[in-house]
Structures are given as structure tokens and as C-alpha cells.
């Protein structure tokens, strides 16, 4: 153990200050999740709980009503999982194959198609709402979770292809060439050589896709019926009652429960996130 030099102390001081700032919004939500709706309504948004209202969590998890359904956030969490998990897996895998093809198997038009696909990162979501309505209508997938999975898979390809391609570009081509001389084909090389090298970047794309799809609202409410709505819809139901006292306590508890899956993913995957980016996006 070294002695702490003044410079080091300063660094620690700055880092802790910034970290505290970063944690403040979370702290406010956590505190509010333990205060009753009335307490918040009669006081202020920032404050210590007078007594811990754990009942907020019970109400948030399985109590509060969205119209006729009084089951809390639980069924909506399941709906979100049913869309988010398949869409994350599909978009990641397809993006990996596409990124692999674009980076290591040049084919005619690859630059063009790659350019267009990455432009998708910048096409605003609201603009695509009506075209998606028409597409889902024509293929008969409106009001199905399958339709949502399809949307998120296709839209997600923009990000996953971009990041996988940037990662695979760094793989030594001799490796591929040698495998081809041994008679290995497209899929064999992908399966045997590329995939084992991929975990860092796949973790990045999984984290990214999972959080984005999990937190999506606009498509989630437009393309589903009541019982299939995603968790974001339930959160909004708690917040947007114009003619009612805002349920800030239950709302805060629900926000925390709903954010747990994505928070956990970042907590567990954070280390690999940076590692994956080290290898991937840096190109």
C-alpha cells in the first residue's frame, strides 16, 4: 500500500463528487419509493420518508390497477420480457452474421448496403410509426408480440451490424484464409472461429439492444392490445392521470422494479461492456 499523495486525494475527491451527482436522481427515486403518495403530495419531491412505506413495492409489483386489470407491474414485465428477449437474441445473432459477412467476406454492394443499414441509427422512431402500421397490417401481425419482435429485430440490425463489423474487422485474415484452405465454409468459419472470439462484442450488443427494447414505449402501446402491453405502458399509466393525484410513491417503486432487469445487466455486464468496446467500436 502506497501513501496517498495529495494529487491522488484530489482525484478521489473529484471522482466521489461526480459519482454522488450521478447517484442523486437514483437516490431521490429510491427515497420517494418509500414515501406514501399523500406524503409526497403534501410535501416536496425531495425528502426523507417519514416512515418506510414498503407497501408501495407491493402495490407496484402486484397491486395497482390499469383499468380493469389490478395485477400491478408483474404481467407487463412478462410481456416486455417476451418481446425483449427474442428480439435481442435475433438482432444480435443476425447482426453478428451480417457484420461477419460485411467485414470478412466482401461481396458486391456490401459497402452500399452497410452504409444504408447504419443510416438507420439516425432515422427517428416517430417517423417510422405509420409505415410500420401499414407493414404490420399487410402481414397480419398487428396486435401481436411477434410483430413487435419483428420490428425490434429489423431496427436493431443497424446497431448490431455496425458494432459487430467494427469488431470483426480486427480479426486477422490469415486465420480465415487458413480455415478456407482447410475447406471450411461460411458457416463453419463463423461457428468455429468467429463466434468463440465474439463474446465481448456480443455482450455490448446484447446490453444495448436489451435496454433499448425494454425501455421502448411508442410501438409497445400502439401495436398491442391491453393485455399485451409492455412495462413502459404500465409506468406511464401510473404517471399520466390528469384528473388524479399523482401516485409518486407507487410510481417510484414501479420505476425501480421495472428498471431492475436493465440495471442488473449493466451491473453484471459493465466490465465486459468496456472490454467489448475496447475491441469493437474503436475502429
Amino acid at each position: 500500500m502506497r501513501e496517498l499523495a495529495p494529487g491522488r486525494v484530489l482525484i478521489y475527491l473529484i471522482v466521489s463528487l461526480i459519482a454522488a451527482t450521478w447517484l442523486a436522481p437514483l437516490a431521490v427515486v429510491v427515497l420517494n419509493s418509500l414515501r406514501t403518495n399523500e406524503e409526497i403530495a403534501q410535501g416536496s419531491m425531495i425528502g426523507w420518508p417519514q416512515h418506510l412505506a414498503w407497501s408501495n413495492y407491493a402495490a407496484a409489483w402486484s397491486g395497482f390497477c390499469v383499468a380493469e386489470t389490478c395485477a400491478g407491474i408483474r404481467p407487463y414485465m412478462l410481456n416486455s420480457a417476451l418481446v425483449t428477449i427474442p428480439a435481442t437474441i435475433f438482432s444480435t445473432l443476425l447482426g453478428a452474421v451480417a457484420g461477419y459477412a460485411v467485414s470478412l467476406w466482401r461481396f458486391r454492394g456490401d459497402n452500399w448496403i452497410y452504409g444504408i443499414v447504419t443510416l438507420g441509427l439516425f432515422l427517428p422512431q416517430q417517423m417510422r410509426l405509420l409505415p410500420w402500421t401499414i407493414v404490420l397490417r399487410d402481414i397480419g401481425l398487428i396486435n401481436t408480440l411477434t410483430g413487435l419482435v419483428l420490428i425490434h429485430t429489423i431496427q436493431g440490425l443497424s446497431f448490431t451490424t455496425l458494432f459487430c463489423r467494427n469488431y470483426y474487422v480486427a480479426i486477422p485474415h490469415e486465420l480465415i484464409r487458413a480455415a478456407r484452405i482447410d475447406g471450411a465454409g461460411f458457416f463453419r468459419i463463423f461457428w468455429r472461429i468467429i463466434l468463440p472470439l465474439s463474446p465481448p462484442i456480443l455482450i455490448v450488443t446484447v446490453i444495448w439492444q436489451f435496454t433499448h427494447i425494454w425501455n421502448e414505449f411508442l410501438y409497445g402501446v400502439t401495436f398491442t392490445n391491453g393485455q399485451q402491453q409492455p412495462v413502459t405502458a404500465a409506468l406511464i399509466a401510473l404517471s399520466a392521470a390528469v384528473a388524479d393525484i399523482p401516485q409518486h410513491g407507487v410510481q417510484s417503486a414501479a420505476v425501480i422494479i421495472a428498471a431492475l432487469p436493465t440495471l442488473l445487466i449493466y451491473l453484471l455486464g459493465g466490465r465486459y461492456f468496456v472490454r467489448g468496446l475496447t475491441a469493437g467500436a474503436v475502429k
Partner: protein
Amino acid sequence: MTNAVSTKPGRPAASDLVRRLPEYLMIWVPLLLCAVHLVSFSLWTIWISFTPSTLVPVSGWVGLRNYTAVLASRNWQIAFDNLLLFGSAFVLLSAVTGLVLAILLDQRIRGENALRSIFLYPLAVSFVVTGTVWSWLLNPGIGIQKLVHDLGWTSFKFDWLIDRDMAIWTIVIAAIWQSSGFAMALFLAGLRSVDADIIKAAQIDGAGPIRTYWRIILPTLWPITITVVVVQLQFAISAFDLVRALTNGGPGIATQLPALVVYDLMFQRSLLGRGAAAAVLMLLILLAVLLPYAAWRYVQKRRATHA
């Protein structure tokens, strides 16, 4: 990519084609679906922007009327100015914040894992939640200002949220909070991949830590900076939910942004044609930013091939 393995040039034999059909399908179907949806949705929007569509898309031709109406509206003019301000301020500041955080974390400090998680966790939170929580914190009547007043410092003032000229900066603050962790991760990745020998050599030459960073390490981060800017730019454009929950364009209409105007025209005011025109204008702004970047990349690549 120049030394990538090329597939066989020329026309492949029919049997070859059949044998390799699965791989063609795997490569082309997803990519084509993605590309086709992007191109056709964009073309569709452009078409709609020339029609008199209101509640639902209809055919017809109104020429440039939707465009002139959008360009003449106060909402769009304010939104456009705000995008320039918000876009540049946010991209710049979040990159700087991310870089500072990365450099701090790169000092081999204890608790790096925990700190990294703290700076990354906002990425896990939805925009709506971020906007809502920051609207509580930044509201002078119920948030930070009130807290400080209650603590006794009654002349403290932090009321940007209700100040027409400063409100746009509250969006910058919330957006930086939410997304600079990503910039940090990228920069940290870059810092970690700098060749240790170079740093050692610089230190042997007697360069101090600041000089080492400034002269040796930071210049290697240029390519990452570009990635950061592109990702943050994407964030700036899609910051729709965040703004809606934080200021909803207010006070008054002082914090309108193009994405808000597009949604507002299309769905709130039921003026699909005008909303589409606003969306096309937004895409044009975007192209104006991205095309120079693409050109720069192209020139770089050419230079690399010739070298």
C-alpha cells in the same frame, strides 16, 4: 477491409449457388430487410410530405405547401435554433465529460468497478424516467433550489427550467447525465488500448502526467472521438422522450426540438403531411452533418490504400 477474403469473382456455377444458398440467405435477407425498410420508409415519408394528409395518409399533391408552412411556423424556427445549440453543446460537453471520467478512472483508482457502474447505470434507465426525475430535481419550486432554500441558503437560485433562455440547458444536463457514461466507456476502452511502451518511453523522457496525456495519449483517441460524436449525435436526435418528459417543449415553446415538432404535427395536431415535411427537413439536417463525415472517411480510406 482492403485485404478481406474475397468471394470468388465472376458468376458462380449453378450448383455452387445451390450449395451456398443458406449463407446467401443468412447474409442477404436480414440486411436487405433492414435496408429496404429504411429506404422505403424514408421514401414513403417524402411522398406523404407532398400530400394533403391529415389524420391518415391520403394521396394527392400539394406541392411544397407543407414545407413552406413548417418553415414559416414559430415552432420550427425555435426548434431548429435549439437543435443547433442543443446538438453541439450536448455532443461537445458529453464527450468532454466522458473523457474526463475516463481519464479519472484510468488512474488505477480503487473501486473502479463500482464507479464505472455508477457512471454507466443511467444508460439502463428509460428516457421517460430520466426526464421525469430530472423535471422534479430541476424544478425550482420542488427540487434542488427548494432543498437548498430549506437548508437555509435562501438566496440560492437555480431556476433554469423555468427560464426561457436557459431551459434548453436543463435538457443538456439531463442528457449528459444519461449518456456520457457511454462516452466514458468508449474513451476508457481507447485509453486502455494505448501501447504501454509509448507511455513508458514518454515518462523516461521526463514528460509529466499532464504532458503525457496531452501529447501522447489524447492524439491516439481521435478515431474514438469520431465514434463518440456519431453515437451522441444519434442520441441527440432521438432525445424525444427525454425532452417530452422534462420540459415538453416549454416554458412556452422555448425548448421545442425538431423531433418534438415532427411528433406533435403528425400525431397531436393530426397534420400528417406537415409532420412528414418536418421529418424530411430533419433528415436533411442530418445528412448535412453526416455527408461531410462520410466524405472524410472516404478520403482517409483512399489515403490509406495509396500509402
